[in-house]
């Protein structure tokens, strides 16, 4: 219980750092000095202390969505493995529950996009739901092989048990990881799917939906996004590369496991930033091809898992 409350406070506080790291690496790849990696914290601070302008057309959906979105992004962070065996007793740690919780957040965000009646918001919602509908299946299918290998769908337990897997099963998991990476890119709105750095009406997806937000609500949405990125990075790092998770629950081992997890997340985020830097954004109607590839990776992994 204590560990759950600790995660509920600690992980959202660490999350903006992930965004900072990605921005820094991308800046360095573009030969710019870039902002400091703690810049996202300053951004949030500033947004929380700005006055807010809300459209007259907005209904209560628009008003409550940021709170729901942020709460969900914190709750899914509770379920994700960080330490190891000490945290497997989360009552909603099942991976389907977590994926569908995230989908609930997306659902409300898409509604908020339509709510203000701006053409940008509506198209952002349409694009987001199109991609989310296809991405959800990939996420389920890439986590499923791990669930089969470890005989549980509790994600913390999956990560703990994955430490004992044989080398040969990693062959199957390699495909699952590739598929998962694609899901990560689409769910967190990264190039080639979406580009969080532009506001070009022809290409933006996520930014189009939140165009009308300002002040504290925008801060919550940005933070929720950082949480989501952090969640996907932690999940990917600890499920597919579980070494470092501890079986013990004394303070020293827990601390060590936390440092190891953060290190792995850092590496994964750098890799994500590097991939983002070397590819271009895809045309919207070519995105289903990449998504299909991710889906096929998942199927290969499941078949390989069962064949083992």
């Amino acid at each position, binding site marked *: 219980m204590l560990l759950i409350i600790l995660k509920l406070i600690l992980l959202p506080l660490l999350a903006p750092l992930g965004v900072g790291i990605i921005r820094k690496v991308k800046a360095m790849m573009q030969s710019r000095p870039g902002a400091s990696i703690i810049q996202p914290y300053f951004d949030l601070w500033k947004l929380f202390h700005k006055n807010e302008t809300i459209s*007259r057309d907005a209904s209560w959906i628009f008003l409550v969505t940021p709170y729901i979105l942020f709460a969900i992004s914190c709750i899914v962070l509770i379920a994700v493995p960080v330490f190891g065996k000490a945290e497997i007793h989360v009552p909603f740690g099942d991976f389907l529950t977590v994926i569908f919780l995230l989908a609930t957040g997306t659902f409300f965000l898409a509604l908020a996009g339509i709510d203000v009646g701006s053409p940008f918001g509506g198209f952002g919602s349409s694009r987001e739901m199109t991609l989310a509908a296809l991405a959800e299946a990939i996420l389920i299918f890439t986590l499923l092989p791990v669930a089969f290998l470890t005989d549980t769908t509790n994600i913390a337990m999956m990560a703990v048990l994955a430490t004992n897997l044989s080398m040969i099963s990693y062959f199957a998991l390699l495909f699952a990881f590739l598929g998962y990476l694609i899901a990560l890119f689409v769910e967190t709105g990264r190039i080639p799917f979406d580009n969080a750095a532009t506001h070009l009406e022809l290409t933006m997806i996520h930014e189009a939906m939140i165009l009308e937000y300002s002040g504290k609500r925008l801060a919550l949405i940005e933070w929720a996004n950082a949480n989501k990125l952090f969640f996907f990075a932690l999940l990917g790092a600890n499920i597919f590369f579980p070494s470092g998770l501890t079986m013990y629950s004394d303070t020293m081992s827990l601390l060590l496991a936390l440092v190891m997890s953060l290190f792995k997340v850092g590496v994964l985020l750098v890799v994500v930033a590097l991939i983002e830097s070397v590819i271009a954004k895809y045309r919207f109607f070519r995105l289903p091809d990449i998504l299909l590839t991710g889906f096929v990776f998942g199927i290969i992994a499941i078949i390989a898992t069962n064949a083992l």
Partner: protein
Amino acid sequence: MSSTLFTILLSFFSVGALLSLFWSQKKTISNLCSNLFAIAGSLTGIILGAFILVTQEVTSLIFVTGLPLFSLSLRFDMLAGYFMLIIGLIGLASSLFGMGYMRQYFKLYNIGLFGFFYNLFLLSLFLVVTASNGLYFLFVWEIMSLTSFFLVIFEHKHHDTIKAGILYFIMTHVGTMFLLAALLLLYGATHTFDFWQIRVLAGTIPDWLKDTVFVFALLGFGTKAGIIPLHIWLPKAHSAAPSHVSALMSGVMIKMGIFMLFRLFLDIFPNIPLWWGIVVLIIGACSSLLGVLYALAEHDLKRLLAYHSIENIGIILLGLGSSMIFFSLQQPVLAALAALAGLFHTLNHAVFKSLLFLGAGSVISQTGTRNLEKYGGLIKVMPYTALFFLVGAVAISGLPPLNGFASEWLTFQSLFAGVQDPRIGLRSLFLFAGGALALTGGLAAACFVKAFGITFLARPRSTESKEAKESSWMLVVPMGFLAVLCVAIGFGAGNVVAILEQVVAQFTLFRPSEIVAHEGSTVVIQNGFASMNMPILILTLIAVTSLVFLLTRWVSRKQKVVRDVTWDGGYTGLLPFMEITATAFSRSLVLIFKGLFQPTQQKKLEYIDANIRYFTKTHEINFATKNVFEVYLYQPLLAVSIMLTKKVKQIQGGNLNAYILYIFLTLIGLFFWARYF
């Protein structure tokens, strides 16, 4: 006790039907009578269903009639009790809704006749789930089909309604024809129409005959349930009927097909072959995926909901199909889990789909149109309808923490269990079904963002929507009741699973001791492979959201909130037609799945100067999708049957001499037949 309650139920509906017909001239009294008695009857149904589920008592009643083979056999068991509970809940909400909703028809149509058929329809639903004699079953099944047909064509002054009704009439009777054939085949093999004697004698039926009965029953009950490709009547009939009738048809009547499929394949026939389950699973996967895709392309609110019924029937069949497969593989625990998932989703779909249809009815009664493009901004004028519709939309998209999530989760888990099967063929099949379900979930969410967002959010796109008001309390209360039910079933998923374990345990195929799917409020399956606790999830969500709200308020306590216009890009103000429309919203998905939809796009361009083709004066785009099933399946079928009838017509030349010749030839033929065969 059961029989007493059932008699009360029977009399409530019959009296309601007759009184409403009797008062036909006084519309208000007639409407009140029919709906009040329907409410009383539905309440009795709820009590009866709950009574059976609690006492777990099986009662059989047989009234022998003078007619050979035809006896009024009733049987109240757990499965029947469960379905009676569903019928009662939805009947209650729909009847209360109907009391207010029917007022708009007072000047136009015959309310007394409607009340008569409405009560009979509800009654026939209760009769169908309790019937246990084949002929008697067909009789009440036919009452159900006919009364619902009359309810569908209620708004008979619209030409489209009559067309939809006739299509429904034809399709449902083609289905009944297959059912009749199936029952006669069973009679031929066992010499009885009684379901429970058939169950005893099922081992003696030859395999080929069982297979034929399976195919016929699947076609017959599948037509009623609306499986693809027998679904074409469903979107048309559901959108033509008054909304609370659509709620009953979609929430309950199509479930009668599902009920009988569960009854036949899991209860009556032992030792089902593997391929039966495989067929049902494939049909389930295709129906769920195609249903949701067609729903996406729809911009008629009620047709959209009707296509979602096809999708959800598919999800229920995924549960039933995997249950049948597991049973033929001798894995009763998994079979029970899958059957449980299917039955759970049956209840959930009944609740949220009726809620959505009632919500649609409330919107339609205010705006007078079913076209999504004409709505917009209704959340401000109809706040309660919007809230309840949103609850239904979240539930049907299978999103936590509502009830739809709980049953879709269970269905996923039973499919995952199948994916772990050692046989490569079966594993691929379950993988296909799992993929279909995963994709269906995501697409359903996209579709309901569209349905809710385009209807209730942004600014009104027509004067009707601008001037709409909240519906009367008689329309709002039943929606609220169903919305609360959505939340409550989600919260108490563990308890519902506990009840369903008992229902499933009464199938002859399973032994009760083998089914364990819950520990307290936690749903646990396959010895802890997966578990889910809805109450904790819901409470955590509420707690964290409130915490976030309070913290944010405290952090930004000094900041002001200003209301202003939506940013219009420096333009002169946003007009309603600049908002996204339903067609635009789903356009990208339609284009991604264009092989299926075969979209056609016609552009009409008019240039200011035809020589310089840069500046257009008018620009008209007509975006339409092709109904693949009608074009490639039903129209050829129709063409062939018309061609055959024309050929047959040639022997009917109107020449009397020729007809006498036919009679003469037939007579000679008969003589030979009698002499030599």
